[in-house]
């Protein structure tokens, strides 16, 4: 019972914390962000399983998180505003040669992040980008001129 309750509480706490941390941890992970993800994961595990290291206890925690995950995904599909709260909405970072500086600052995105995404599309110049969009998963989509 304790494991199930702890897993459920921590699932929602992590959902909020990761959402507030921004989108970068979900995509375009640098070593800096790897540290964050592993650290948060390690700390959470201790609080969920406590001093019971049995397989049955771990199974309870895993199934609880799996059920919650499906329930939240299903709720997001039915209630669009919940989807926006949990995942956010795509955001324009660059529009026809103009940076959206306020959005970039709020989302802690730099020019180099956009350029990095552009290079993966074979684009070598920022001027060749028509739109750069920060997606809900943290990736940056590039639409060429």
């Amino acid at each position: 019972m304790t494991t199930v309750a702890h897993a459920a509480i921590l699932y929602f706490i992590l959902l909020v914390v990761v959402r507030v941390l921004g989108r970068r941890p979900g995509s375009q992970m640098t070593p800096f962000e790897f540290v964050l993800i592993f650290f948060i994961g390690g700390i959470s595990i201790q609080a969920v399983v406590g001093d019971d290291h049995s397989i049955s206890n771990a199974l309870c925690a895993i199934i609880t998180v799996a059920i919650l995950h499906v329930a939240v995904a299903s709720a997001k599909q039915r209630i669009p505003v919940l989807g926006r709260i949990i995942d956010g909405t795509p955001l324009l970072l660059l529009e026809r040669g103009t940076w959206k500086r306020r959005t970039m600052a709020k989302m802690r995105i730099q020019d180099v992040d956009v350029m990095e995404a552009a290079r993966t599309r074979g684009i070598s110049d920022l001027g060749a980008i028509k739109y750069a969009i920060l997606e809900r998963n943290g990736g940056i989509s590039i639409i060429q001129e």
Partner: protein
Amino acid sequence: MIDGEKVSDTVGKVNDEVAVGEDLRFQERWWIVERALWVVFLLVIAAGVSGILGRGGVFSRGYFAAPDGSCTVEYERVAHFGTPLRLILHFNPAGQQQHDFALWMGRESARELGFQRSIPAPANAVLDDDGETLLFPAAEQHGDVVLMMQPATFGRLHLQLAIAGSERADLPIIVLP
């Protein structure tokens, strides 16, 4: 959603050419919520550093002294569920203890706070109607005695205690989940 439903412009477009679905009104509201959440996070950190959430800060420790000054009990005001909790008896090094030292603990509080053992073990333990008295010989009163506990429940619990003939004290201990 219906199978065979025709595709329509359900995702908002930018400049009427790229379907992005950006919702800046929602985003502005979210940024306000985000700022509020950062304030909450900072408050949690401040509470943690000051000891309001347990162990380590100035607010986390409480003291209870024997009326004759022979001993002070140091206890944790804030404990954590399922986590070892220590209660330390500091004997006054100035006073040479001539008599056995008695520590009484209420049965209900010993059960709720999950009393496990005393280090060193008492020379004797005497049960009464509502608690237990641990007796430490005079010869052992030159170091600290540590009582180990592990709360099995959470909430505002009470440590009922009496030392060296003092009145029974009711010390509140908050056990966080």
